[in-house]
């Protein structure tokens, strides 16, 4: 049996002795005893009362050679126990009772259960989550400082209108990418705080993207482009997702993945330096989100073979709700063609149209590649990619 000895000197129970006794009891192993040496006369009655109040076991006292007394206390059944595994590693399953207690904290028993319902490591946190978070933090940029705003605009009205339409569309989609992850942060158990923290960087990214897209759109005036019903329906079907893996898959792997190609297209055909720079930076951020989505889905698929079918089902379900959506919203399609044409000259528009058609093929090919990387079969990958929303996100 382990005995932990404390020298309390002349400290009284109300005058500091407890600051020695309580930590010793907390660190005591099961069945251990704390031996308190004290020369304070009042301790003889105060310590047993305190033990009774706290539910500790007062085991008596004995005279020592020096004239002081030694008091023996056993840790009561009602005091602290380690409710979570000590250490920094993420638990396989988190306990709702540990609430906001950081991993590794000793949690008192009997606390309230928190309403977090995302409690399983393998369905939340890919192994590389900490690295992804660090990369995201290091890559933050500033919309005012880092974009050469003086190198924008001055284009023919039709081309500028196309840029405004594209920026409007991008901002609308990024707003959905701001809202959807927010829904999950409050459900993720803090034992997996790194996931929430990564998502927080994602939210900051999206906020910055919304800022730069709208700032670019408004350079030529307050009026923005069209928000189409197709986009609206598509984004609502994203927002309504309640399963984290499905959301990560549909938003980050398929949606933001498709956006990588879209942003690359806009960057390539951007008519000015500011537009090229801001979509380039947005694309770099988005590729991190895609990386997280892929890492999450890969890790989740590795431990849950039923997930393939669920993800495919989620894509099918979403496609069904978007039934009747024939293609990319017309205003967006037109703007992308005029952008690539750099204007309205018919010959150039024909080339722009070809570039747009090529973009759709590229998007499909990239999606299939990502789906294969995530672990889907070529057939599944092809089907899922074909079913992906014509809205891109």
């Amino acid at each position, binding site marked *: 049996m382990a005995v932990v000895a404390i020298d309390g000197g002349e400290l*009284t*129970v*109300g*005058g500091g002795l*407890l600051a020695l006794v309580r930590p010793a009891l907390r660190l005591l192993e099961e069945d251990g005893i704390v031996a308190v040496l004290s020369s304070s006369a*009042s301790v003889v*009655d*105060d310590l047993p*009362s*305190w033990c*009774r*109040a*706290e*539910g500790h076991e007062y085991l008596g006292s004995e005279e020592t050679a020096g004239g002081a007394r030694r008091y023996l206390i056993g840790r*009561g*059944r*009602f005091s602290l*126990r380690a409710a979570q595994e000590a250490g920094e590693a993420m638990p396989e399953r988190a306990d709702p*009772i540990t609430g906001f207690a950081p991993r590794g904290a000793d949690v008192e*028993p*009997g*606390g*309230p*259960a928190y309403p977090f319902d995302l409690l399983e490591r393998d369905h939340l946190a890919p192994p590389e989550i900490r690295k992804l978070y660090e990369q995201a933090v290091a890559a933050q940029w500033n919309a005012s400082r880092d974009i050469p705003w003086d190198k924008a605009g001055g284009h023919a009205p039709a081309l500028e209108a196309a840029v405004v339409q594209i920026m409007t569309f991008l901002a609308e989609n990024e707003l959905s990418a701001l809202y959807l992850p927010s829904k999950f942060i409050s459900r993720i158990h803090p034992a997996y705080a790194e996931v929430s923290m990564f998502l927080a960087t994602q939210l900051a990214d999206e906020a910055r993207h919304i800022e730069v897209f709208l700032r670019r759109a408004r350079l030529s005036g307050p009026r923005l482009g069209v928000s189409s019903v197709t986009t609206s329906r598509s984004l609502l079907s994203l927002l309504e997702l309640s399963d984290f893996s499905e959301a990560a898959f549909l938003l980050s792997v398929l949606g933001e993945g498709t956006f990588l190609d879209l942003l690359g297209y806009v960057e390539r055909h951007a008519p000015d330096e500011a537009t090229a720079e801001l979509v380039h930076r947005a694309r770099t951020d988005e590729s991190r989100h895609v990386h997280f989505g892929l890492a999450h889905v890969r890790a989740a698929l590795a431990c849950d073979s039923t997930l393939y079918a669920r993800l495919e089902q989620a894509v099918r379900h979403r496609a069904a709700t978007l039934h009747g959506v024939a293609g990319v919203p017309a205003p967006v399609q037109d703007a992308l063609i005029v952008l690539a044409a750099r204007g309205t000259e018919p010959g150039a528009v024909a080339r722009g149209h070809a570039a747009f058609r090529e973009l759709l093929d590229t998007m499909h090919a990239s999606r299939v590649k990502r789906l294969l990387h995530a672990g889907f079969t070529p057939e599944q990958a092809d089907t899922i990619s074909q079913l992906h929303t014509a809205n891109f996100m």
Partner: protein
Amino acid sequence: MSDAILLGAVAYDPKVVTIWEGMRDYFREQGVPFDFALFSNYERQVAELLAGHVDIAWNTPLAHVRVRRATGGRSFSLGMRDTDRDFKARLIVRKSSGIRTLADLHGKTLAVGSRDSTQARILPLYFLQREGVELDRVRILPFDTDLGKHGDTGTSELDVLRAVRQGDADAGTVGDLIWANQQSAGHIDPSQLEALWTTPPFDHCMFDALPTLPRAKAEPFQRALFAMRWDEPAHRRLLELEGLHEWVGPREEGYRSLEEALDSQAVNVRS
């Protein structure tokens, strides 16, 4: 009376509603039909128990002893808090008062709690007298707050501590739990106050019932009561509010000193 157990408790604090509504929900979850009635004082609660208007009364030691006497010792005692066992009262002195022994109390001012408080008045005075303190040679400064609540609020005990600290009294009597909790919370200045003497242990609250309480009510009540667990979040909240870690079985020997005190006429509870 209906099948539901009707329990009486005294509303000495707003938290009593929270406690017994929580307990009612808990008992019902356990399949024990249960309701409660709140009284403003223990005298009324004891009268209503004896009249058969409630099944069980959550009683202070004074109320418990009165029920024992009124039923000729035939009442059922159903359970108590772990903290109700081996209660003690403490004599707290101001260090500058010069009181070093109990005999030094003579000629000094002694603050005491409500006259119906077992721990802050009745038993400490009884035991002091047994130790040879002549109470008529001590100036008693009483804090008769919350009469009828039998000291449950703790208000009179905090008044006692304040009076001793401020010099209105040289010494005072309080229950050991309030002293331990005040020390534990860091509210006591050890250079000013110290506990000089401690009474022998006595027991505190008890669930009382008439001997006519059917087993069909007593047994489910005890079963559910004793099944409450400190590490169960919903239970812990109620246990903390009621000031215990676990409910334990009844015992009678812990009330003998209170019976003697009431018989001795040393302490006038009713004045």
